């Protein structure tokens, strides 16, 4: 014969359930302070915004007539600058030199 009757088993089950529920609450309370809150990750900074891309190397070599490691004022590194100042014609000719 079992030492416990049905009624006693029911009490054990009820207390066990209550203890489990209480324990879960405690666990949740204990875990709460270390739970990582969802946050918006910082914006990814493209490497290109700080590291200027270079032109693909031509087969016969590349002449570097002027190199600037930092973008000059008013010029973005990725897109053409909205603030780029108006400029005279880039290929304004100079007076013809030799010959005639």
């Amino acid at each position, binding site marked *: 014969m079992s030492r416990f009757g049905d009624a006693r088993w029911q009490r054990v089950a009820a207390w066990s359930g209550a203890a489990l529920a209480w324990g879960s609450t405690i666990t949740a309370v204990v875990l709460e302070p270390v739970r990582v809150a969802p946050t918006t990750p910082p914006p990814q900074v493209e490497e290109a915004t700080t590291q*200027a*891309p*270079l*032109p*693909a*190397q*031509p*087969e*016969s*070599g*590349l*002449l*570097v*007539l*002027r*190199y*600037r*490691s*930092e*973008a*000059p004022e008013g*010029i*973005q*590194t*990725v*897109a*053409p*600058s*909205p603030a*780029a*100042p*108006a*400029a*005279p*014609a*880039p*290929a*304004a*000719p*100079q*007076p*013809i*030199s*030799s*010959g*005639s």
Partner: protein
Amino acid sequence: MTRGSFEAMGTTVETWSETADGTAAVARWFEEVESRCSRFRPDSELSAINHTSSTDISLSGLMWEVLSAADEARTLTEGLVDIGVGSAVAGWGYDRTFGEVTDIASPGGHFSAPGWTLCPKDRTLRRSPGTSLDLGGIAKGWACDRAVEKGLAGTVSAGGDLRSADPGTVTTVLDNRGATAARVHVGVGALATSSITRRRWRVGDREVSHLVDPRTMAPVETPVLSATVAARTAVEAEIGAKAVLIKGVDGLAWADRTEWIRSALVLWHDGSVFATTGLELVA
């Protein structure tokens, strides 16, 4: 040697010729070309082409020559320079002379890819519905080429497109701040610069340039602020410079391996200046 200048095609045209009459002759020639090829003149042949509902259009002799040059340009640049982007150029806001262009909220509609062919048999243009032509750069370069080839002047330069019959021709390439990027010996040949820093305006929150990429039918986004190309003719130099701009990072490498391009130079977005080794620099 006489130097002269006049305004045409929305830019300053400069001439160097043996006589003072040279400039006047070149001015008359440019007026003839502009009167047919301007999309801003309602009575021009180009405006008639762009506004007709017909898909098969007979062309004048001059227009046939210009469109033939444009057809060749499309082939040489693997489709990157295509005069059929006119609807996108106008739709993004450049639908009037540049001095009158204003900021707009958004582009005016969706623009279908360019569709046009030439029929040599009867010298007609066949154009897809919705395709509008913009001859701007091509007509300018072509006018320079023909002016020199006709002997009207020894050298003609129009807004960055230069054609020379003088072995001594030297030009200075300026950056977007007006500083010297390089001095280049052009000699007998041509040199052209295409830039996205000069003709700019806003569409919504985006600043755009006049150069439209036919692959996207939208203003080009490129790390190149300006590209300069030396070639045999001003048309080739002009389309080469545009293609280098559109190709962006790969532009110089492409120019270097392209036979009809003699040399190329780019002004990079950070102010650096790079060139192919074929560029003839002058101290």
